[in-house]
């Protein structure tokens, strides 16, 4: 018998295949692409958040050295490209013809031989603005008499959305012994991928084919929408998403830069590169959160939680562009009953237009789950403190018990599997919860402020089942196409697009697991619409639940055919052939076998008569349900009574994402997500003043954590497989961003609760904490 090769299947912590190019600088991001004759596109941007355009004078710019084209909204109008549809059925301006609606909006495109020449010429375009009254607060935007952002809509009201049972919920609130409520603002933040958005567009006028290399998480959707808008046949449009330097949801969108670059390429006949600078990217690309909510929780005196309700206003900026499934104008916020067995819940959300860029991206968050988890986890903590019950104990008392799965929530979601108490108990044990509470008691006596915060979240990912989920009508399946070459080597292509998640490795591991072929022999490709099977892309932690499942099912299809070929080769009946990872053997005679590689060779050289040659399969996977990863996080903070700084001393994260494909990658995803949650909780915020000036327009003003502030994460796991996913996996990309902010805030509030503090809005700036300490007479001047 030959040695079974090490294949690095499911569960192997193998190092990533794609890293070979990244660590040697041989990667290809959009800005690395250079084509012969390429020119550069740069934009004149509006200093005003809201202003009528009186006139635009481009003459001086056109005459500047190196300038090859200047493009305004008026040039796009005849092409029907001055406005384009958004992913939520609204439309957005590409370049304005009448007025600008947010600061740093693209106004005029300038194309020149070099980026330096383009930058120079941008300064020569003269735009005369007439300032208009500005509205940046969504609540004010919904008031009578507020400035109207979108004249085509004649109102700033985008939508009203409700979920749950209002009456049943209100009834329970009336009957409840204890009701707690809290106004909370989940601030506007930017995803801050390290690679700013950009594209290289080239229109081949002879072939009539536009090709666009683009920082996109969903190239196929871009192609379809582009074809529908421009009437260019879809087979002629090619969207290539090369290496992507982080996306986190922000690169699902199509921004004006790509449209103008494509038009500029048609106009000039040359390849056009557009790449945002950071100071352009933060103020003009889509944002996340910006959500004002009033949340209330009702309970019995004994701590039994009864009902939850939320009334909220969400800010969508000037265009409603959320990348939400069409049935969910406010995403999956209705997962807000979280990990708790509640009797009723009700949420209502009003969306508002404001003078900001479009918001509402699912920033490392499966469509508004982050806001939902924050709401419930904050309120459960407030309830625990109000009742004088330990927050861990209150959670344990109210968790959905393991035996209730699959569990239908009052919001109608069917949770696939879970063991919430298991995860929380593990986290408590790991961090030494009891001991920490004792320490806290001691410290309080000495006047020291220490807090412990818990968040026990339930996620909902893997969008999604075709009966419920679509984006612009396109169903949200996952796709995989696997071809085995005669020598047993594999090319596998997917409709998703990794932005750092490690698909080239994890998909290879899934195929390795299913087909017994070592991962080195499997090439994974994504992102090129000419070659990859149609797919909805990567966001909302959907790759493993959908495309990962598709890889497993497609592999199994291949195995079916391979088995027939193996039977032929082994001269056995098909039902007597047994599969063992990597080979087929005859039942009862394991020495008589054919490896998958031998079978692959035979598929092209010696396949059974009447059978089609080749060994390949395509699968479009329609998930029967969402998956519901979960976890419990515990955070310990110490607060400096002088400066108001809260320092995270420890953070334990116990995650459960079902069966794990690559523990190294899962760990990395959790670390990254926790760090984003940490940034959100303590330092990240995009603010606007009343004139619409943005604060946080680049990395100097908008602070994301460095290695120095970032806590040393302690991670652990429990494993509760998904019963319906072919691999029992659930997806993990976003759990930590979704779950962690509440843990940080809960910890800080826990420290300050004895002073009478019930809530602090993020970011937990030291000055906010210090102000509270002063109000409560607890601040120190040294």
């Amino acid at each position: 018998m030959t040695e079974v090769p090490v294949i690095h299947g499911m569960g192997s912590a193998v190092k990533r295949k794609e890293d070979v190019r990244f660590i040697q600088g041989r990667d290809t991001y959009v800005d690395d692409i250079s084509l012969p004759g390429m020119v550069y596109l740069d934009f004149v941007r509006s200093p005003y958040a809201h202003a009528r355009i009186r006139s635009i004078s481009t003459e001086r710019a056109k005459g500047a050295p190196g300038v090859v084209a200047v493009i305004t909204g008026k040039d796009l109008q005849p092409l029907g490209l001055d406005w384009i549809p958004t992913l939520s059925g609204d439309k957005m301006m590409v370049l304005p013809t009448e007025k600008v609606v947010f600061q740093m909006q693209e106004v005029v495109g300038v194309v020149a031989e070099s980026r330096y020449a383009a930058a120079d010429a941008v300064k020569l375009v003269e735009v005369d603005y007439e300032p208009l009254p500005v509205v940046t607060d969504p609540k004010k935007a919904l008031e009578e008499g507020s400035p109207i952002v979108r004249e085509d809509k004649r109102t700033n009201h985008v939508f009203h959305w409700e979920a749950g049972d209002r009456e049943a919920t209100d009834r329970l609130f009336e009957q409840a012994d204890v009701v707690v409520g809290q106004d909370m603002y989940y601030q506007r933040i930017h995803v801050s991928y390290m690679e700013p958005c950009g594209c290289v567009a080239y229109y081949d006028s002879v072939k009539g084919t536009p090709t666009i290399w683009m920082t996109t998480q969903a190239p196929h959707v871009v192609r379809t929408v582009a074809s529908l808008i421009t009437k260019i046949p879809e087979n002629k449009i090619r969207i290539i998403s090369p290496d992507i330097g982080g996306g986190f949801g922000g690169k699902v969108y199509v921004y004006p830069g790509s449209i103008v670059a494509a038009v500029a390429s048609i106009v000039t006949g040359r390849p056009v590169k557009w790449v945002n600078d950071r100071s352009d990217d933060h103020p003009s690309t889509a944002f996340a959160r910006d959500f004002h909510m009033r949340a209330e929780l009702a309970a019995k005196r004994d701590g039994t939680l009864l009902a939850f309700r939320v009334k909220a206003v969400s800010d969508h900026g000037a265009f409603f562009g959320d990348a939400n499934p069409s049935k969910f104008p406010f995403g999956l916020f209705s997962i807000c009953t979280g990990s708790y067995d509640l009797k009723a819940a009700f949420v209502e959300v009003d969306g508002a237009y404001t003078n900001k860029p479009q918001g509402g991206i699912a920033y490392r968050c499966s469509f508004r789950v982050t806001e939902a988890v924050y709401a419930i986890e904050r309120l459960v903590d407030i309830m625990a403190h109000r009742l004088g019950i330990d927050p861990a104990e209150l959670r344990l008392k109210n968790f959905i018990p393991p035996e209730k799965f699959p569990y239908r929530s009052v919001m109608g979601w069917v949770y696939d599997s879970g063991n919430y108490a298991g995860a929380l108990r593990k986290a408590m044990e790991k961090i030494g919860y009891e001991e920490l509470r004792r320490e806290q008691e001691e410290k309080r006596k000495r006047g020291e402020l220490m807090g412990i915060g818990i968040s026990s979240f339930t996620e909902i990912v893997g969008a999604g089942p075709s009966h419920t989920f679509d984006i612009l009508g396109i169903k949200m399946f996952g796709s995989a196409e696997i071809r085995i070459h005669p020598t047993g080597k594999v090319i596998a292509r997917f409709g998703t697009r990794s932005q750092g998640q490690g698909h080239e490795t994890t998909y290879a591991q899934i195929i390795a697991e299913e087909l017994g072929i070592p991962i080195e022999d499997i090439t994974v490709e994504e992102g090129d619409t000419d070659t990859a099977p149609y797919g909805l892309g990567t966001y909302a932690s959907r790759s493993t639940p959908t495309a990962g499942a598709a890889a497993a099912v497609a592999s199994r299809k291949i195995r079916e055919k391979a088995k027939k070929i193996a039977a032929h080769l082994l001269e056995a009946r098909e039902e007597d052939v047994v599969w063992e990872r990597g080979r087929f053997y005859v039942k009862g005679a394991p020495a008589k076998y054919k490896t998958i590689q031998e079978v692959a060779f035979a598929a092209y050289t010696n396949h059974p008569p009447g059978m089609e040659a080749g060994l390949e399969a395509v699968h479009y996977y329609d998930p029967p349900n969402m998956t519901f990863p979960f976890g419990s996080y515990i955070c310990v903070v110490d607060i400096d009574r002088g400066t108001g700084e809260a320092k995270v001393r420890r953070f334990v994260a116990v995650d459960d994402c079902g069966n794990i494909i690559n523990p190294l990658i899962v760990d990395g995803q959790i670390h990254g997500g926790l760090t984003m949650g940490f940034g959100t909780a303590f330092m990240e915020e995009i603010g606007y003043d009343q004139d619409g000036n943005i604060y946080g327009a680049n990395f100097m003003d908008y602070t994301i954590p460095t290695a120095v502030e970032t806590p040393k994460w302690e991670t652990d796991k429990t494993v509760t497989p998904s019963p319906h996913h072919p691999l029992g996996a659930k997806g993990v990309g976003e759990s930590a961003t979704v779950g962690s902010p509440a843990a940080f805030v809960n910890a800080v509030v826990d420290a300050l609760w004895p002073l009478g503090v019930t809530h602090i809005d993020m970011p937990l700036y030291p000055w906010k904490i210090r102000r509270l300490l002063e109000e409560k007479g607890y601040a120190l001047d040294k």
Partner: protein
Amino acid sequence: MTALIYPADAKVRLELTVNGERRVGEAEPRMLLVHFIREVLGLTGTHVGCDTSNCGACTVVLNGRAVKSCTVFAVQANGGSLLTVEGLARKGRLHPIQEGFWEKHGLQCGYCTPGMMMAAYDLLQKSPNPTEEEIRRGISGNLCRCTGYVKIVEAIEYAAQKLRSDPSWRSGGD
């Protein structure tokens, strides 16, 4: 010596050693070193992530010290020696820092990685046996949005250990 004044639109001829090789190129005085490296020298492993000297994606080693190449004019590097990510490996052998990042899952999207490795290179030259705190401070000029840094720190610890046990890497790094 009388100073030579290069007019604003001059094409200045630059000669420098890049990853051990003599390279020549032209740049107007205002051209940033990062654009010279990427667009004139064609070495695209060095990335641009911001425009305010915060992210460190453009970090290279100039005359033995790690610097942000977006905050240096190319003309300033004239006659100097430059090491970029493309020059880290030697004779097909990965540098221990590259090895560390690969082994310890020190990267995800890869965009910050070259800059992060060049900062680590500088750190480990100065401080061959750094504590965790020193490593964290050593890469505090480099932002990563994917990894949460824990594994980057482990990658650099791995590289430090490896470099200490294999002195052949310690001489003539650039």
